[in-house]
């Protein structure tokens, strides 16, 4: 099993969600984050004083999938989240040790 973490541009969320649903991926967790990669921020002025904004608003998605679904999911997220403009985001994949569905106690593959 894999835990896929994707940091994307906020307005791509609906497209990513639809792409994952089409694949049969049923669960998704989203957090609002700020971040930067190569897309630097810019300078702003507040009441006459300049300051640098380094971080940009992004969304972080966390999806748990079976190992065989993972490559397809990664591709789906990449396609849906890409705009071609700098700042599209990144996907991180790590091995997932155990998954439990709280309501029923099902584990691992049965919980996904």
């Amino acid at each position, binding site marked *: 099993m894999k835990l896929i973490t994707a940091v994307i541009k*906020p*307005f791509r969320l609906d497209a990513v969600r639809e792409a994952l649903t089409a694949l049969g991926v049923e669960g998704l967790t989203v957090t*609002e984050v700020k971040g930067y990669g190569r897309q630097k921020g810019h300078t*702003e002025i*507040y009441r006459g004083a300049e300051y640098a904004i380094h971080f940009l608003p992004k969304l972080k998605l966390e999806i748990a999938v079976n190992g065989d679904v993972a490559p397809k999911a990664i591709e789906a997220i990449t396609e849906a989240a890409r705009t071609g403009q700098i700042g599209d985001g990144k996907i991180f994949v790590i091995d997932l040790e155990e998954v439990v569905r709280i309501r029923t106690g099902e584990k691992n593959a049965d919980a996904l």
Partner: protein
Amino acid sequence: MGSELFHSAKAALSVQTLIKPSWKKLAIFSFTPLFLATTSLTANAQEAVAAAPAADTAYIFNTLLFLIGGFLVMWMAAGFAMLEAGLVRSKNVSMQCLKNIALYSIAGLMYWLIGYNLMYTGVDGGYMGSFSFIYAMDPVGLDGADSAALLETGYSTASDWFFQMVFVATAASIVSGTLAERIKLWPFLLFVVFLTGFIYPIAGSWQWGGGWLSEMGFSDFAGSTLVHSVGGWAALTGAILLGARKGKYTANGVSPMPGSSIPLATLGTFILWLGWFGFNGASQLAMGTISDISDVSRIFVNTNMAAASGVVVTMILLQFMYKKVDVTMTLNGALAGLVAITAEPLAPTVAQAIFIGGIGGVIVVFTVPLLDKFKIDDVVGAIPVHLLAGIWGTFIVPLSNSGTSYGVQLIGIVSYAAFTIICSLIVWGIIKAVIGIRVSEEEELLGLDKAEIGVEAYPEFTSR
């Protein structure tokens, strides 16, 4: 001078709502200070002697009404600002606040510079006033002024100008709500310059300035048409030319964009409700007799009941139709009730006011989704509330005011529609062609606060 006479005549008319007046008759009577002091059509010599001291008192009370009503309507600018701020998304709140304080200020400047004269000076049954710059107030301490002439008008020049000015500002703020979240700041304010300096004043001259519509018998007590539907038509035209927000209307239907602060939106609505007592109440234009102040009281009650009715009707309809009561539509319902009663807040009985305001609520519930069907993106519901409820309120005046007719009301409604739509199309069209009115897609996604202002309304976590 003609404008002052008209104001007095209008004050008399508003008192004598059940009598169909001839403007010549009123003009003749208004040459006597007595008539102005008592605002009654029955004048005689003994009353003239007894009422002479009353002229001073009437002047003071009339002026006071304008001043109090004026700052109450000014406060409506805060109401609009809060309502709009609450109904836009966080990333656009600073912009909405900025637009509102800017348009209120521009309205005042333009109205002093050109607007008042264009609306009230030398209209005489025509289609507009005069193009003369700057409107002069009375001198300090009335030093050097013709006090007798001033007394004849029934109120101070500045109070009258101030009261009329805050109405222009209201019309302009209607436009800012509809066009929120995707319009550029300066092109919008440029439109406001034309709306407050030319479009509204010329339109207003037809009725309150003593122009051709008032001579025809059209009636709009406090501005359901002159203020609310003029603002509404300008907003509608702008919305069509501007286009909807990106992502609002998708292949799968409507994708709502919920506002950022329901408390602010609610506060804004209550502030507007409060301000409306000045908007409608002070449109009586006179407070110097027991009859007039009684009328002002009656207007307060009708105004309140129409709003209350708008709220309750909206809530009941929403419960039945959606099983859930949308707070934002309920806020709209209150305002629709207020707009609807604005054309005639004096004559109706409380029951009639409840009916009129209630229909305002019905209008909101059915036309908010209807606009979405036409892909017209009205962020705050200003078109249902101001334009459509304004038309309804204007149309239904003859129900309680037997001195008016449905036919003439319709002529007025259509004339204002045609004029405002054409003028707005021209102004929006030119601005759009020359400098563009819409922000880029990137800016729209980033949020106008960051894109055009550089100040976030709700800066998220920072490192300091």
